[in-house]
């Protein structure tokens, strides 16, 4: 029991109390349900790997998105983590392909450009098919630094390089926005063409 609580407590977002709750819940569950969970856990490690092209999670050499011919291969959206791909896919707005860096530049944690999938991105860009790069790293210090780094690196290649907008959340109230967000929204205001 103690082993299980400890292992669960190592998961992100699970504190010691939640870990204990989950452990007792599993203890009270049907053996079948627990077996399904255990299988899912071992299978995910066995079957899922990273796409050779974009670095997203995949069950084959290439991920589902990289294999999909209907996707636009000229536009590539650069994100930090596979979970960012999931978030953008939910919008159903983006029809291009992705490149997952595997993190952001952070010298404190010893993460430099060489530790990210930057070289792989350069190889993809060298093929000449890609004409636009959308930088969708997180809007924090490290994400901005990563975006700026990539923009500087890719500038000589003559691509269109864009950065996702920062600003007010849709459906929210202006008065609840914090000063930094509101300041960014002012910087990024656009001409209303009517």
């Amino acid at each position, binding site marked *: 029991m103690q082993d299980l609580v400890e292992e669960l407590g190592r998961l992100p977002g699970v504190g010691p109390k939640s870990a204990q709750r989950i452990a007792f819940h599993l203890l009270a569950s049907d053996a079948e349900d627990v077996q399904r969970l255990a299988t899912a856990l071992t299978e995910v490690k066995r079957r899922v790997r990273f796409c050779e092209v974009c670095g997203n999670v995949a069950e084959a050499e290439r991920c589902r998105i990289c294999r999909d011919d209907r996707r636009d291969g000229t536009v590539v959206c650069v994100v930090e983590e596979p979970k960012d791909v999931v978030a953008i896919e939910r919008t159903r707005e983006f029809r291009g392909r992705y490149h997952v860096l595997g993190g952001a*530049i*952070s*010298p*404190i944690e*010893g993460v*430099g*450009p*060489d530790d990210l999938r930057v070289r792989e991105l350069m190889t993809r860009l060298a093929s000449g098919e890609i004409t636009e790069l959308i930088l969708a790293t997180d809007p924090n*210090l*490290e994400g*901005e*630094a990563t975006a*700026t*780094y990539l923009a*500087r690196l890719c500038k000589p290649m003559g691509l269109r390089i864009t950065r996702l907008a920062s600003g007010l959340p849709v459906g929210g109230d202006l008065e609840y926005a*914090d*000063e*930094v967000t509101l*300041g960014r929204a002012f910087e990024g205001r656009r001409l209303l063409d009517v």
Partner: protein
Amino acid sequence: MHVAHLSLADFRNYERAELPLEPGVTALVGPNGQGKTNLVEALGYVASLSSHRVANDAPLVRAGAERAVVRASVVRDGRPLLAEVEINPGRANRARLGRAALPRARELVGTLRTVLFAPEDLALVKGDPEGRRRFADDLLVLLAPRLAGVRAEYDRALKQRNALLRSAGATSAARRGAGPLPGIEVWDHQLAALGADLLSARRYLLARLAPYVARAYDAVAETAPGGTGAGAAAEGGPADVVRLAYRGSLAEHRGEGEEDLSSEAAREAGAAPRDVLAAQLVEAMEQLRRREVERGLTLVGPHRDDVLLSLRGLPARGYASHGESWSYALALRLGAYELLRSEGPGTPSEREPVLVLDDVFAELDARRRSRLAELVAGAEQVLLTAAVPEDVPPQLTGRRVHVRAGALQLPLDGGPAEDAVAGGGPADGASVPEGAADQGSAGDGDGRG
């Protein structure tokens, strides 16, 4: 503004404490080591999300407890607002305003505004530049809350850049001269943009603060009987005695001198726009690259600047006497108080900070003690701590709360008896925000009259 009620849970030596407060003067009296300063420290924490005594939050939580909670009912424009902060050492603090949880604790800053005087203030004059930078930046955040974010981002960007410089220095001596550091330009630009923002805000602040500090010094130190500033006018204005200048690492690198912020002309000439400052910072970092890699440190930027305090043309640090240094330290705090109440954001009631005087009277000679007491007596709310009742100047009449071993006995002389609530408290302690607010708004009139 004033605080109508302060409550602590697991803060320092207090398991629980409820302290109802009123406008006017409240003296917390008790022997040393009983928890007087802990009460005002808690109040300061709600105001600034930091302690004036320790840099790290762990000592704030009572031994054996996981977190501490401080709650203050702040009355502004007659309306009470509950400001609450949960202190989680090593993790993000959580804050609530009214009933709503704030997405970031830092958004609480500015709700309660305090100006705190403490024995440590002497280091503002005699100590290292770091204390003066913190003084300026804390005040900056109260005047423009946006800068709390800029300051935090700057510190983070600085750590990132220093880490990169250190790793480059460690890779090998051969690498040092051999071409650029991969990715350093990115951090140069990030740091420069944030640094320029902070730099221009600091200079603007100090230029606005300087006249208030000069007048306050005059009021504390000069012997003009009774009134404030009457004697100084004859000597050609208080600004000649006390001057503030900015010693910037950027200006120093560029071979420019210190920037006198006490004269109108210098203030206008010296105000370079932010993008110019940012470009200058980037240029300086490029020029200093080799030395920065050698030392693994960022050598230019607001984190290496200082505020020069001068007294009759000489640096106060090193030249001022002990008494003069105290006058200067008090003048900085009083100047900040006057700046906040005259030029701070919000309504006049929101601008009026709560004055907190932690054990300062014991440090001052009789003359400074009574000058300070006269100067603060008119404030909307004054909280002071003293080890013995004799340390409370006679000008500051008001309620006395006796503090002994983490328990509060209130009040012993003066003040109505019904607001006596000690740890745990009777039933009416639970409904304190509403009850205390009624007292607060009713007391507003008589407290000031």
